[in-house]
């Protein structure tokens, strides 16, 4: 009976904490107009502040620091060639940050495969989930879920 009276409630109370989910979303969308990929990251502001300043309540996010952090933790490889992402903008959106990058021009007809490595926030949050979406004109959306045990994924077109 000791189990029920003491240990069971103790297990419940020990685990009582808010369900604070850790995740990011990356969209890789081909722009027919620019003949290049737009790469967008939706990140939680407090997560980004935690990794940049070790303080989730830091007053601001510096663009340069944020873009450098993203580029250090995200690699895009298209048709076997590493892409040098070009920073476009970063802006706040509710409790999230939208960071936008783009690739160099890549003809749509030449696309065959894409490889992504994404380990954003994993050095800080082991439970982090990084969703990666890929979209080409006229095709179904593709998705990969990355985490601490799987940081790389491939898309075939």
């Amino acid at each position, binding site marked *: *009976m000791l*189990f*029920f*009276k003491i240990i*069971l*409630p103790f*297990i*419940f*109370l020990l*685990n*009582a*904490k*808010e*369900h604070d*989910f850790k*995740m990011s*979303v*990356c*969209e890789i*969308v081909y722009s027919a107009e620019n003949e290049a990929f737009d790469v*967008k990251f*939706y990140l*939680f502001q407090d997560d980004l502040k935690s990794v940049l300043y070790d303080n989730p309540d830091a007053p601001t996010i510096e663009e340069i620091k944020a873009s450098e952090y993203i580029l250090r933790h995200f690699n895009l490889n298209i048709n076997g060639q590493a892409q040098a992402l070009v920073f476009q903008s970063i802006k706040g959106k509710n409790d999230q940050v939208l960071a936008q990058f783009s690739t160099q021009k890549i003809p749509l007809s030449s696309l065959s495969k894409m490889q992504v490595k994404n380990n954003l926030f994993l050095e800080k949050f082991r*439970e982090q*989930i990084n*969703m990666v*979406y890929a*979209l080409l004109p006229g095709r*179904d*959306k*593709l*998705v*990969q*879920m990355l985490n601490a045990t799987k940081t790389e994924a491939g898309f075939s077109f």
Partner: protein
Amino acid sequence: MGEFPTFLKLGFHHIADPMAFDHLLFIVTLCAVYEWSEWKKILVLVTAFTIGHSLTLALSALDIFRLPSDLVEVLIPITILLTSLHNIWAKKVEGSAFSKTLSTNYGLALFFGLIHGMGFANFFRSLMGDMGSIIQPLFAFNLGLELGQLMIVAIFFTAYFILSRIFTIQQRDWNLYISGAGGGGAIILIVQGIFG
């Protein structure tokens, strides 16, 4: 992995993850008044919770109805606390007869499911970018939640069955332990939600 299995997996892990303590605690507390042999009533209970949370998950994910996430994070443990108090209070009034408690529980599961659905939606929206239709991911995510929910219920009653055989524990005592522990955990979550 395709979109459907990805979101099915995400839904399953969101509710079945031990770190997802709030939803898990609610389901366990809700089931505390039942005997393992009352599987038909448990099925109705789980279905009532499913109807409730599916409705607000869809409405909230589609931006038709939404409450601030901070408020939802406090309301969820309040549903756990009220359920545990109801379990304990009903026991005192009715002794070993739980008939009124059981029918009220269906209502609680349905109504409180509406609140949990908004919590699921906060997670679901964070998974989506700005791209395309969310209908298929939403359906897959909800299905994953259901599978996870059924797994929790199955594990809970298997544990109850085994432990009740080992310790010859009475159902009313089991209810008291689980509801008491659920209520205590809920109070901590409420305090964290308000002051954390």
